[in-house]
């Protein structure tokens, strides 16, 4: 049917899926094939992080490609591998079986990857084998008799290099040909391991001198009992310093750009409701959040680069023992580190943890790992209340405080996990983690990853954040105060009343009613709290509202105790509906979610209470 595909039908004429072991270069191949024409499924409503893309072959065949999660076997041990197995077998409830598989295997790790390939042979689907990392294999002195291997396996083998466009052209050309016949399954009674050994002996010349010595040498340093942890600590510290320091000039630039834009747009408008809506609701709201884009992207850049380079699993190795103290295994490290970017992918990454209890605990403490949406709040408060000073000549005091907030959150997470796992009989926590060869991160993959994050963030700003801010603007503008009433207009509005009511609960931890108001939209997205404060203060200010002057405004209107209390609140509070929703979906239990929300809110209130009163005692403010 695919051979009849004509050029005039715009509908995708071939539906393929990329399958392969983790670390086979599958994702970089996917990026290379589809470029920016990818659809990373939104988290809401689906159980899979579904990466789908579209591309056209040189002869004009339109292809829809699905990037399946990496798997070692179709006999799955994790929810992630379940997806791969179900799609390959055509058993997935929402995903049709692909017409053809592109099995990605790394030439540098044939022993492992060929075994999985033999399993794919059993499926009865047409398979094209993309033999990846041929450049590296050649450099290592590996010689593969591709023609012989191809004839023996009964599947076309296309040598590729997924790192550059030219390297995947042979695969594109192969996709223009009619589909190959499905390979014959392995005869019963043949051990796949023996078969792999036979294939390797027959078609691969692997001089052991040509092995990947670089990874060995690097591992001697990075996995060293002393230097390994020291390097890891330095990496994490530098990471957080750059997030704070490098982003600053970019953020200043964005900030002035937005206020210029605001002035140009607002100039022709007369004062009144529309002016106020655009200035205080839309521009102030979106603008205060958009300026944090550089910080969020720098953080993601680090995480993506560490992941691509192969260093992350080493970090998991080094921290396994530490995670064991928390009752977890090193496997929990990767989901938890991702949670520093955003708890949602972090909670989803917990799917790779086989042990169900480890997985649950990891999900429960993931919201404690400081996600990037908290950065705007931290940055604002640190900027307003922590002096810009240098300690020991190199470290900024502000950066140190930020590092401290992260550290407190991590320690709390460890303690929480410890408490949750106490009394549980010590059962086995499998680690069984592959340590892939080190690789230089691919710039194109990094750029694509960042671009996706930026789009996701900006579309959030454009949708949730702007609409919430407009809603909040309306709440804080109406009803209008009676003519000639004294005081700020917001005092008479609905938001003002809600804030005053909430203050009964939050006064003991030092929150004023403006903070209480900003906490409400913060439930939809943490970073909105900053823009909400801008909105509340812009409207509440008796002089001409100035959203871009939020920082100096806060440092005069709030006490240091209030600011620190809010920081402490933000370390713990599960103020993100999306996180709770993902938690519900991944655990399938509303009880778990309620419990998580209760324990996190409890911790937040307690921490803010202590911080508020201790800071008041120290600073001597009554």
């Amino acid at each position, binding site marked *: 049917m695919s051979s009849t595909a004509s050029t005039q039908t715009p509908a995708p004429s071939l539906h393929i899926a990329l399958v392969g072991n983790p670390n086979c270069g599958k994702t970089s191949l996917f990026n290379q094939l589809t470029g920016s024409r990818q659809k990373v499924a939104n988290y809401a409503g689906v159980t899979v992080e579904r990466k789908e893309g579209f591309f056209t072959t040189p002869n004009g065949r339109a292809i829809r490609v699905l990037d399946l999660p990496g798997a*070692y*076997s179709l*006999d799955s*041990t994790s929810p992630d591998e379940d997806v791969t197995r179900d799609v390959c077998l055509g058993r997935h409830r929402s995903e049709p079986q692909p017409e053809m598989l592109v099995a990605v295997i790394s030439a*540098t*790790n*044939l*022993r*492992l990857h060929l*075994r999985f390939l033999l399993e794919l042979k059993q499926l009865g689907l047409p398979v094209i084998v993309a033999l990846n990392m041929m450049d590296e294999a050649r450099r290592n002195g590996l010689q593969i008799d591709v023609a012989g291997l191809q004839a023996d396996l009964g599947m076309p083998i296309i040598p590729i290099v997924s790192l550059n466009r030219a390297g995947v052209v042979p695969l594109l050309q192969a996709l223009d040909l009619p589909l190959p016949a499905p390979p014959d399954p392995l005869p019963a009674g043949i051990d796949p*391991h023996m078969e792999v*050994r036979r294939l390797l002996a027959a078609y691969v010349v692997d001089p052991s001198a040509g*092995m*990947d010595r670089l*990874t*060995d040498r690097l*591992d*001697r340093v990075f*996995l*060293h*009992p*002393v230097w*390994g*942890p020291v390097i890891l600590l330095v990496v994490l510290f530098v990471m957080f310093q750059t997030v704070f320091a490098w982003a600053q000039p970019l953020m200043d630039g964005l900030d002035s750009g937005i206020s210029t834009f605001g002035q140009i747009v607002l100039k022709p408008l007369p004062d009144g409701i529309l002016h106020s809506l655009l200035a205080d609701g839309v521009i102030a709201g979106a603008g205060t959040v958009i300026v944090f884009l550089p910080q969020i992207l720098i953080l993601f850049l680090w995480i993506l680069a560490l992941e691509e380079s192969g260093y992350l*699993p080493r970090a*998991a*190795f*080094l921290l*396994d*023992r*530490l995670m*064991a103290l928390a009752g977890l*295994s*090193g496997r929990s490290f990767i989901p938890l580190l991702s949670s520093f970017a955003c708890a949602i992918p972090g909670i989803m990454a917990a799917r790779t943890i*086989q042990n169900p209890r480890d997985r649950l605990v990891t999900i429960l403490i993931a919201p404690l790992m400081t996600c990037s949406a908290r950065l705007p709040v931290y940055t604002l408060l640190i900027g307003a209340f922590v002096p810009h000073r240098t300690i020991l000549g190199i470290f900024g005091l502000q950066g140190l405080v930020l590092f401290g907030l992260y550290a407190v959150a991590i320690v709390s997470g460890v303690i929480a996990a410890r408490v949750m796992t106490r009394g549980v009989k010590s059962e*086995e*926590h*499998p*680690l*069984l*983690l*592959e*340590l*892939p060869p080190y690789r230089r991160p691919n710039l194109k993959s990094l750029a694509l990853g960042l671009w996706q994050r930026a789009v996701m963030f900006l579309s959030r700003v454009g949708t949730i954040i702007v609409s919430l801010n407009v809603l909040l603007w309306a709440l804080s503008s109406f009803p209008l105060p009676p003519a000639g009433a004294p005081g700020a207009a917001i005092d008479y509005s609905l938001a003002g009343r809600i804030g005053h009511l909430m203050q009964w609960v939050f006064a003991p931890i030092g929150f004023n009613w403006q903070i209480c108001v900003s906490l409400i939209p913060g439930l939809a997205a943490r970073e909105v709290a900053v823009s909400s404060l801008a909105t509340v203060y812009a409207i509440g200010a008796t002089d001409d509202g100035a959203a871009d002057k939020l920082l100096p405004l806060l440092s005069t209107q709030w006490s240091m105790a209030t600011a620190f209390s809010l920081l402490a609140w933000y370390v713990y509070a599960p103020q993100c509906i999306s996180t709770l929703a993902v938690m519900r979906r991944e655990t399938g239990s509303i009880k778990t979610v309620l419990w998580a929300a209760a324990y996190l809110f409890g911790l937040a209130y307690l921490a803010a209470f202590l911080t508020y009163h201790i800071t008041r005692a120290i600073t001597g403010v009554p």
Partner: protein
Amino acid sequence: MRLSRVKVRAAEPAPYYRGTELMLYLDTLPKGAHAVIEKIEQRAPLDPIATRLEELGFVPGEAVQVVATGPMGRDPIAVRLGTSRFALRRGEAARVGLRPAA
């Protein structure tokens, strides 16, 4: 081939030989030493960890080497198996029975 440390230490009653059987296990293989996998032991019927080990290529006849041990104590260990490397905990490694490298 290589004169591994296993052979040198095998002369004395070494702690890494378990039970009366003269079997060496991966969890006690010294760092740097080479050995060959003899068998994978099931801890329970259909032991999922043993199955996964086999899927990862821990099968009789493959050469293994411990390349690193964790920074705090001996857990976990990093093992080289052919061209791949894996991090495992002792409990997992204890399922892998070895014989000295030839």
